[in-house]
């Protein structure tokens, strides 16, 4: 039975002339068809409620709040995230915000290294004194695999099997670029992301250290009318 069927056929009294077998069957058909409409209303309510929505509806709800879901994120994780959406967005423009987003794609440990951090650590003219430049170290554990040796051995960018020795997909890169665009403060600029291969990746005032794969990041406006991008502090914070 359904909402209307229960109500029309069981809960409210019917006059005797509507109580015959044929008329009851006729009313039941109408009530059952109405039940379908009632089910659609209840479904709509569920789909617009974070606690009960399907994944597809959750993704649309996220976009309503200028947010998104990720393929690497489970539905339950997405739901839990959206239930705290206001708190999450209070982190917009902060390191905490960026780190929380990386956690959503399976990178719970991320270090954000800014020009100021580098300067304080004694690096000489890091990022060419471009205030607001930064890079990101995605530490272990992370879901990506590497062909560090292949890259060190002469592998090329997007050689058909890996990208600069990193086995993340082009979609992973787009996800990371999107995280950075949405969550960093305007005016700041991430120049590259390095992925720790084996727990040794890091940095000191003289440069990057350890084993890592590296992905350059640019602001969208850096794409010139030719379609090309000029390299600018995309592999090192010391050399443009």
């Amino acid at each position, binding site marked *: 039975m359904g909402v209307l069927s229960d109500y029309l056929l069981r809960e409210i009294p019917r006059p005797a002339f509507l109580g015959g077998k044929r008329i009851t069957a006729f009313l*039941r058909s109408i009530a059952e068809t109405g039940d379908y409409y009632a089910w659609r209303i209840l479904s709509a309510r569920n789909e617009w409620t974070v606690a009960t929505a399907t994944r597809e509806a959750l993704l649309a709800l996220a976009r309503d709040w200028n947010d998104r879901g990720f393929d690497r994120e489970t539905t339950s994780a997405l739901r839990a995230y959206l239930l705290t959406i206001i708190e999450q967005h209070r982190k917009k423009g902060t390191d905490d915000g960026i780190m929380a987003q990386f956690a959503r794609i399976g990178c719970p440990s991320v270090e954000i290294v800014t020009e100021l951090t580098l300067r304080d650590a004694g690096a000489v003219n890091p990022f060419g004194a471009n205030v607001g430049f930064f890079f990101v170290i995605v530490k272990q554990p992370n879901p990506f695999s590497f062909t560090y040796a292949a890259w060190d051995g002469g592998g090329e960018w997007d050689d058909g099997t890996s990208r600069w020795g990193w086995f993340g997909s082009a979609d992973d890169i787009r996800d990371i670029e999107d995280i950075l665009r949405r969550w960093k403060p305007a005016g700041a600029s991430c120049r590259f992301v390095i992925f720790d291969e084996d727990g040794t990746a890091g940095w000191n005032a003289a440069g990057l250290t350890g084993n890592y794969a590296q992905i350059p990041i640019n602001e969208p406006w850096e794409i010139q009318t030719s379609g090309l991008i000029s390299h600018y502090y995309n592999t090192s914070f010391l050399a443009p």
Partner: protein
Amino acid sequence: MSLFKDLQKAVTQSEYFNRLMAAHAANEVPTATWLSVVNIGLSISQYVSEALAQVDSLLTETFRALYLEEWQGLLDDAASDTDRARIEERFRINARNFYGIEYSAAQLQVARFVLTSVATAPTQTLTAGSIAGTPGNGLLWASQLEADLVPSQRAVVEFQAAEAGGNYNVPIGTTLELKSTFVGVSITNQASGAATKIGDGNAGLWVYAAQAGVSVQIVNAGASLPLLVTGDLGTLILTVQLRTDGGGVAQSTADEVRNAINAATGNPAQLVLYARNQGTGASVMSLTPAALPLAWDGGYIQSAGSDIESAQRLRRRCETRLDTIGGGGGLGLPPGLLGTEDALVFWGLATPTGYTASPVRWVRVLSNNKLGVMSGGESTIILASQAGAVAAADVSAVALNYENPRKYWGAINVASAALTTIPLIGVVHVRASSGKTLAEVQESVSVALANFLDVLGDEWSRNSSPTIFSNKLIGVVDGADPSAIIWFEWTGFVGSIVLSWNQFPAWNTSGMVYQYG
């Protein structure tokens, strides 16, 4: 189909009828005996199906309107202008309820028009409500003020547009004519300064500059001097020396000064267009402590006309709303201080103080950028209007949206977009059998291109580097009226055009030819 997708599509009357007939069969309703089309069971089943389809349509419309990404699709699906208006009202309610955002209503333009009387014209009075307009059955404005039209003199009069809308913001130099009869008087929309207050009340004037950088000083230069108006084209100062008595007391009333300024020729006329009384003008004109600068914005629009806020623009404001609370979570800073690019989009779309509607349609934020050049810690905010560029005065007004309290990290630079013409060249082949005139097809293409510009503007605003692909343009034109357009024989640019940092596209369709076959 997923549940979510299923709820976005209304169940039709026939689908409900089929479902109901299946239920009848399951419930052993003797539908086999419903042989007549006027059978009451059949008729009631059709009516019930129709009723359910109607309320289902309301359900899906309400449901879809809850999702910003569905808004455009809902509008596209609207069957009539009435439907479209009802749907847009639903968007406005949702924007108010869920985002705390009020839509911008359409605004009436107020323009400053300059009226010039020839030497042989009689002295006439332009009454409030006098009509001016573009030639023919074009745009109309009504004067808000009364003004004396004196031979060989000019008057600057505020006129209000007859209807709300951005189409009244016509370019400077647009041909205008007085619809109310005034012999020997012409009207233009040349650039003029907004009225600047000099003095107060019955001892004061409103003065309109004729160019940028003009100042006015009212002086008492000593005893027994005549009323004299002079202008210095070097300093751009208009000086009014008041008539004085033997005791050095100023005697010139505000009205006398007004007459003297309006009658002046030569240098003064190059500095000031017009003066009018604030009150009766009967009191002695107030002196100025120094030369007072006159307002100048380089245009003629006192208050810009605007269309009702489009659903696309309202959607963008809604979706960027949550970005404005950032910065308060991780670092304990005041909310909004670390504006993301999208937060700066939100503030760029906000109505500036003193405006009735925002002159901005799209906002693009470039990080690490100072007006096109790499610059760490800076953002460039580019503003585009529906027409493309945004006036300098409007850019300055919008820039204040980002201050008090400050809403960004580092530094910002606010600038207007630069229009870049995208040439569409080719032949649109039209099916004669479609019954459409070439003009009708051309109109469909215009609408499709305008809609595509909306899409590109959104992409531009999201900081995707906008690339205009020739193939995409071909598709837009082809799809403008699929039943009438056979194909678009494109002979324009090959590949794509990538817009530079501040460029915004504008279509040039002069190279498109429409022909049957």
